[in-house]
């Protein structure tokens, strides 16, 4: 094995995995608490980046512009929950899952094209506020922005974990996640909790969006792949898993994708993520108390029949 390549891919994996982890935390929080398949997560992602850039272009200093972006993404998510998902859930509860999924896809299509219509399809850049420098550890290279990205994202992941674990609102969120009916009985307004969860989840996505816009650029369709990855991480971590587990799962996914470069050409990287998902879906049922010797015995006896 080429150790120099391994080191570089390992470093890349930490950076990529941190992004995936944060995305998974936000998406998983929404999915785990509300049960909503919020594919329009991607449009909150895009709106956050665009709102920050437009605010900065209009002379707002960088940090307030970032706050404007995060607020825009969070507000949009809450509006989607309040005015799109909730009416659908209320009107047709038995069909809500599918209806919400389809409506969220529609929102993505409409949202992306509205952004293109208004602001064009060319890339938009977000200033980092500092000079990005190349750094290295041994033969591995990365940038100062990568360091900031990893630190900020893990701070966000830990922040969400601490919010859920130690604060009153966090306990309310956990209560609604575990048993919405019981939570309602004890006086927790699940409607408000849902709104809060959408806001928090989209804010987490927004942080990733802002960092991505700084590292790469903002584009109307920049939210698609992150949303897919967020779903994969949330699914692998387990719907309802805590932020730490989702974050670590994202790190593992990112690391696996990056380290696959030791053997595979880079165009196969997305396949690695799909493969992890496939393996999980295939192997998961086997984890329900079925051991490997049992599997082997069943295969042998199936052949005998």
């Amino acid at each position: 094995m080429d150790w120099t390549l391994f080191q570089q891919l390992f470093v890349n994996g930490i950076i990529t995995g941190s992004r995936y982890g944060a995305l998974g935390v936000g998406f998983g929080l929404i999915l785990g608490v509300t049960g909503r398949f919020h594919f329009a997560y991607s449009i909150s992602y895009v709106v956050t980046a665009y709102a920050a850039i437009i605010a900065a272009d209009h002379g707002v200093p960088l940090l307030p512009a970032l706050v404007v972006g995060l607020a825009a993404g969070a507000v949009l998510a809450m509006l989607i929950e309040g005015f799109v998902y909730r009416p659908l859930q209320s009107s047709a509860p038995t069909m809500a899952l599918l209806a919400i999924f389809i409506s969220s896809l529609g929102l993505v299509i409409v949202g992306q094209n509205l952004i293109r219509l208004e602001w064009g399809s060319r890339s938009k850049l977000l200033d980092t506020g500092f000079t990005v420098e190349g750094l290295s550890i041994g033969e591995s290279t990365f940038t100062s922005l990568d360091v900031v990205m990893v630190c900020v994202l893990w701070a966000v992941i830990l922040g969400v974990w601490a919010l859920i674990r130690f604060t009153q609102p966090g306990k309310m969120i956990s209560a609604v996640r575990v048993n919405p009916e019981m939570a309602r009985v004890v006086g927790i307004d699940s409607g408000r909790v849902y709104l809060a969860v959408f806001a928090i989840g989209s804010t987490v996505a927004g942080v990733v969006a802002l960092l991505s816009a700084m590292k790469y650029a903002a584009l109307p369709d920049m939210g698609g792949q992150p949303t897919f990855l967020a779903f994969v991480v949330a699914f692998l971590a387990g719907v309802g898993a805590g932020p730490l587990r989702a974050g670590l799962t994202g790190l593992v996914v990112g690391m696996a994708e990056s380290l696959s470069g030791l053997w595979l050409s880079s165009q196969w990287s997305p396949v690695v993520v799909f493969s992890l998902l496939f393996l999980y879906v295939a192997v998961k049922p086997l984890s329900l108390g079925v051991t490997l010797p049992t599997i082997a015995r069943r295969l042998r006896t199936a052949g005998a029949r």
Partner: protein
Amino acid sequence: MGHEDNYWIRRMGSGRLTRRRFVGGAALLGVGGAGLALVGCGDDDSTSKTPTAAGGGGATDVSSLKKLLDLPTGAAAGEGLTINVGAVLALSESGSYYGGIMSKGIDLAVEQIKALGGPTFKITYKDHKSGNAEAGAAAARELGIAKTPLCLASYGADIGSMLAGIEQYKMLTLDGGGGTGTAFQKKPYFYGTRAITPDDTFPGVYQYVTAKLPNVKKVQLVYWDLPEELINPSVELLKAALAKNKLEYLGLEKAPIGTNDFSTLLARLKQKNADMLHMAVYGLDPGFLMKQLDTSGINAVVMGSEFTPDAAKVAGASYNKYMFAYDFFDIDAPSNPWGKLFVDSFKKKYPDVVPDFYAANFYENMFTTWEIVRRVIAKKGDVNSGDQLNAALQEKTVFPSVYGGDSAKAGVIAIDKDTHTVSKRSMGVFKIKDGKPAMAASFDIGGADFKLVG
């Protein structure tokens, strides 16, 4: 569904949402929406809008073109005729920038042709949604059903999806966006009007490398993740060009299409220790790749196959290390008077838009279309007959061009009758100086007329 099933009526009925609150909320939403619209006004990119001939500026005096292009007048020019032309472009999705800029080139040409006494070209724009095969096939079918005899296409006839319709409806089609590539040559009624990249650039590029980059001995090819049948011809041509110049071919590394994260690719490239990376990646990808390559520890020379202002914006200062080679239209230094007139008139008509080579290609293609129509008129033929238009093109496959030429005369583009791709097309190797392309060498197909510049 009764009233009791409606979420909003139940909320209003429960008293939690009163009429006053609802109206107040709607008013707030309206004010907020208006505020958002105001913030969004005045964007610097209007290329995503539906194509329209209306521009912000005035028209340019184009009378000089009559002499420069030796244009006839009156009936011979097609005066008074209305001719339908289809334009199948990326008008939505990720490639909508290209469709927008191409349509501006078309609209400018239509306006100028009319001013020069030519026919009214009625353009029907169709959207192939940035490479959607069904959309391309549907566009060709719809244009064919409408008996449109002429078409301008992009993305290599939308990655070949239009070819069946083009042949079925005998619609003479020029592609100044993707050209024919290697896969779509010799197709009936379909012609590429730009160089195949990177294939057509290899001979000229490696003459340049031998002359000016003597330290380059080992070359690594980086290619978009396309089907093997599209890549393999390029690999063989590159090997031949390298062998001729006694350089070593290290291998092929495929890059995912349309990604912004090249970290894995760059990690693998670093191990190759190449002296030069020859890249066949397009759109914004070169910009993202250069930005990340700058801090990756890779010191190889980078030779790309495309330059767009948007990719340059993404890459920032790291693009100063980027070189590229293809039939690039230099808007800051047009090579002939027609090219200069194109740039001046484009900027006048669209003051907020920077012209690029795609706009130049489609502008030029409309004039090529006009010349083909004039040839049919000269033979008293039917300008709506695809067969006659095709025959007129085949009769003489040389046309004036905004590329090449010199300070006194327009350049020339020639199309091969057999392959339907260009056999003569000015290309160059370009460096980036102060963020702008500067020609370092010029050459033609096959490396002909190679000349170092500057």
